[in-house]
């Protein structure tokens, strides 16, 4: 999360989107100075107790409406929006939320790991019959991260990822350390059930329309510690952008990938997983959780490594220890999948 200067969204020069979002937040009762919380693909502005989020122009409105409706119908699990339907501002869809208190980023040990696991277990067991949902965004996020890495390293579009191995690994960006080739090899080695299909690989946003939830379960689609906030005394999941029908083990797969790469301590991982199982979370079995976790955790490891290496490449710096650990995991994933 990028926290900018206090007055950035409100000073005289902020004639752009952030300034208009600040006025929008005030219309919903937000008071005080506005802050830009994020300005990337989405733009998030907070004024007082109101947070507004603007989406990219290509966002699927039907899917977003369905996701907002689910957020409004699962109290105690998801933060309910202040506006039931997305608003429009300069051709952008905008959602409006009450502000909450995030997890302290300086203290991951003190983060509410158990509560996060409990919230995911509740989401995964929510009454499916009442929900109509687009597909969860996990596979599309993987496809997007790998496509961005390929773009940066001089490969052509994501479709190439399904074909032959990429160009000469000694060329361009990849020549720096070979990590791109390692990540792409791990991506190609992923089990079929977690490899994004052509629809996800080719589309900017998850496609497939909104359907009654018959296959899969409700899943968050992009869980991490920035996705829980405390609101009116209780922790809740936020960010419905990737919420949908999917494989719930994907929601555990990011912490699982951290753990499997030696980044998340075994103690914190056990706290999280045990709490999920204790809450009767259906994504994994207590007897052998890695049976369901293995494939999505491989997928998330590739996604995390692709995102990290692309970021390092864009900043023109070598990989740090954490990023190298993810690339090493990709190497082991590719080797573990290779025919003996």
């Amino acid at each position: 999360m990028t926290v900018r200067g206090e007055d950035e969204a409100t000073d005289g020069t902020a004639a752009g989107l952030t300034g208009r979002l600040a006025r929008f937040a005030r219309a919903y009762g937000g008071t005080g100075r506005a802050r830009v919380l994020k300005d990337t693909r989405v733009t998030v502005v907070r004024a007082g107790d109101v947070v507004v989020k603007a989406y990219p122009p290509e966002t699927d409105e039907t899917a977003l409406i369905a996701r907002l409706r689910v957020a409004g119908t699962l109290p105690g699990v998801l933060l309910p929006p202040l506006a039931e339907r997305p608003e429009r501002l300069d051709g952008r869809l905008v959602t409006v939320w009450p502000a909450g208190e995030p997890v302290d980023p300086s203290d991951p040990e003190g983060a509410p790991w158990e509560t996060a696991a409990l919230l995911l277990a509740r989401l995964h067991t929510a009454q499916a019959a009442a929900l109509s949902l687009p597909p969860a965004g996990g596979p599309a996020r993987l496809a997007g991260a790998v496509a961005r890495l390929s773009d940066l390293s001089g490969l052509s579009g994501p479709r190439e990822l399904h074909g032959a191995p990429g160009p000469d690994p000694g060329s361009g960006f990849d020549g720096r350390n070979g990590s791109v080739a390692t990540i792409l090899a791990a991506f190609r080695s992923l089990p079929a059930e977690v490899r994004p299909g052509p629809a996800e690989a080719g589309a900017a946003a998850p496609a497939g329309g909104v359907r009654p939830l018959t296959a899969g379960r409700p899943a968050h689609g992009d869980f991490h510690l920035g996705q829980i906030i405390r609101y009116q005394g209780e922790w809740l999941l936020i960010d419905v952008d990737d919420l949908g029908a999917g494989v719930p083990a994907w929601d555990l797969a990011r912490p699982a990938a951290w753990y499997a790469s030696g980044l998340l301590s075994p103690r914190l991982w056990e706290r999280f997983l045990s709490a999920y199982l204790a809450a009767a979370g259906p994504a994994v079995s207590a007897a052998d959780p890695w049976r369901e976790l293995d494939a999505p955790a491989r997928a998330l490891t590739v996604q995390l490594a692709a995102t990290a290496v692309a970021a390092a490449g864009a900043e023109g710096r070598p990989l740090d220890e954490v990023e190298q650990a993810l690339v090493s995991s990709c190497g082991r994933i590719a080797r573990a999948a290779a025919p003996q």
Partner: protein
Amino acid sequence: MRCPKCSGNMRTYDRNGVHIEQCENCRGIFLDYGELETLTRVESQWSQQHYPSPPPPAHGGPAWGAPHHGGHHRHQRSWVGMLFSS
């Protein structure tokens, strides 16, 4: 022999092959050359017998998982960023 710290009288003990001098006044202990290494070796033999290696995590891990080294990267910017963002 006199204690190098308080000049008290030092008394010699032999315990399990380790030769030590202890000051009767300040209780300080003097080790001869090689005796610290002897103590370390004896201690590690003892702890291997008494503290078996920690059990693996209750729920296992994947075949491709990394060995765990402990959280020395705990405050690295990229790790905290990854915990809290997509």
